[in-house]
């Protein structure tokens, strides 16, 4: 019933992820059934080790589920080959990492343009596009700086610029404010909100309750199980 009412982007059915084997195995996700709506800002919260990052990694095709089904935009991700998964990551997903993962010896421009470089786009085209995004994010004076020369807040904005450059449908942000001070954290969250409002599906993994006020939907994970799913209803709870 619910699936018919909303525009679905991501559907997880009986999704399991187990690390290790037999006796020493750790269950990270257990029979997760979930629908994430298209164009919405969804926050996934939970304590450390609850499985929220694992869930995000599954959606981002950074990790493979042990069993279950994961459909993104009507495509069953679990059946894709390694190459198709790489293509999927490149074209459909934009990653924003807590630790930024910028190459320190590259310039900001090179870092931002990297997904386009991987996609085989011409240098001029990718640099033009990267510059446009960097200007939008207020980093025009940092374009030719080395990534290592930036502050944490700037690094995270570069990371967001890199996530946006391929114009992906889904932005996955894993604790994007985790390494930032409050002010920078706020700025990053505002940017993510703007991205969501532009029609992108944003999935935020966080344990910071300050961050979730920007989200449309809220999912709580506890011990690998979806314990609460406050889709469109959380505002009443947090405001």
């Amino acid at each position: 019933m619910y699936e018919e009412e909303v525009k679905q982007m991501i559907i997880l059915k009986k999704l399991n992820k187990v690390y290790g084997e037999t006796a020493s195995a750790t269950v990270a996700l257990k029979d997760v059934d979930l629908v994430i709506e298209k164009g919405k800002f969804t926050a996934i919260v939970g304590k450390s080790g609850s499985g929220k990052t694992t869930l995000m990694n599954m959606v981002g095709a950074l990790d493979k589920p042990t069993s279950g089904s994961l459909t993104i935009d009507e495509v069953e991700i679990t059946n894709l080959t390694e190459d198709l998964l790489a293509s999927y990551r490149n074209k459909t997903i934009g990653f924003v990492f807590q630790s930024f993962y910028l190459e320190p010896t590259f310039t900001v421009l090179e870092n931002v343009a990297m997904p386009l470089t991987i996609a085989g786009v011409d240098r001029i085209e990718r640099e033009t596009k990267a510059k446009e995004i960097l200007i939008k994010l207020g980093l025009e004076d940092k374009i030719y700086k080395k990534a290592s020369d930036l502050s944490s807040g700037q690094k995270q904005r570069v990371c967001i610029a890199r996530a946006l450059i391929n114009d992906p449908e889904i932005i996955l942000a894993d604790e994007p404010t985790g390494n930032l001070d409050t002010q920078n954290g706020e700025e990053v969250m505002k940017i993510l909100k703007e991205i969501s409002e532009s029609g992108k599906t944003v999935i935020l993994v966080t344990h910071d309750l300050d961050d979730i006020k920007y989200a449309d939907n809220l999912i709580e994970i506890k011990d690998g199980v979806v314990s609460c799913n406050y889709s469109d209803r959380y505002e009443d709870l947090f405001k």
Partner: protein
Amino acid sequence: MKFIDKLKLSWHNIKQNKSRSIITLIIVYVIGLMVMGILALGISFVGNMNEIQTEKLANQEIEITHSNAEDITLDEISLLKNVFEENKDYITNISETSAIGFGFSSSRITMFDYNYFNEINYVIVEGEKPSSAISNTNIVYLNSSYNQEYHIGDEYIIEYEGSDYTFIVGGFLEWNDFYGNESQTISIRAEYFVDMTYFINNISQINGFTIHYNYQNEFNAKECILKLDELRNEVKSVVPDEKPRFVVDRMVSTTTDASLLDQFYKAYIMNYLIIAFALVLGIILILMSVGSISNTLTISIDKNKKFFGLLKALGLKNKDVLWIVLYEGFFIIVLGSVLAFITLLMNLELMKNIVVDTVIVVLNYSFEDNTVAPSFIMPYYTVFINIVFFIIFTYLFSRTTLNGVYKSAPLEVINEVK
């Protein structure tokens, strides 16, 4: 991902791993020097050996003997003459011989004798110089050793398989060498000796001939050997070896003092052995250093694991990861090999001296006393051979090493570094 971008990322990795890359570059350079040096020395030694062998062969006469005891017809003789004419550049002399019957087999009659390069003069010891007028008769000129037994005008009867064949003795002759200028000399042409038509029609026993084959200095020995084979085959095609009447096992063959020819063939095989030895040695050396390149790539992979993990997270395919790492190795290989090649080019004189000394010792050859000029060849393709082998082995070694990054999920790679 575009080729040029992969190259840039490889270069980035090299810079990240500078000291190890320089050590590997030095190893590739030294091994390249040795591999290309050994190959060039081998090729140059073989080149000198070929020249020397050619020179030796050029001084020797080689015979092709055909003796199948089967009748050779007039048509066949006519065809053979054409073959000889066509190959006269290589042939110094052709002697047509025939063992005509058992009674005469001890002294072969020269049926015709083409001398292309030197006039072979015979001396008429007794009798008159034959003229064209007598060339169509059954006159035979006998060796002077018969002059006690026969006289000019006598009938000379050859008994063969129960039949008698009659010739008129026209004279006696000998090689000019033995008799100086005592008497008339003639240049030998078959027609002057025997009426071949009569002879063949009646005796049908022209069953052997010898081609004196001589290498000329200006000819390449290898080319001459090919020509020799061609000639032998042509002779064979005109006068087949089938159904030999007397001797079953004697066919068209090189029956000369062709020990030199054999030597040449041996040298020919030796050429390949030397080159093969140089290649094998080169491959062993390359294999030894590939370990170092592979090690460098492993270190590079370890050092850049996080970077590769990130690239994979951003959509880089496994095969592109592989190529980025391999290009890193290839870059070191190409640079090291080219530097080694340039170094060798700058030391050609030293290399030449090594070859010359080896030739003198191994082939017991004196360049001063002979016409062959010592040479050293540094073929450009040695650098390509070096690079290709290095690349192939590095590729094979590195695929295994790369599996860690290649197969694992991007996040595992990132987390491993975390």
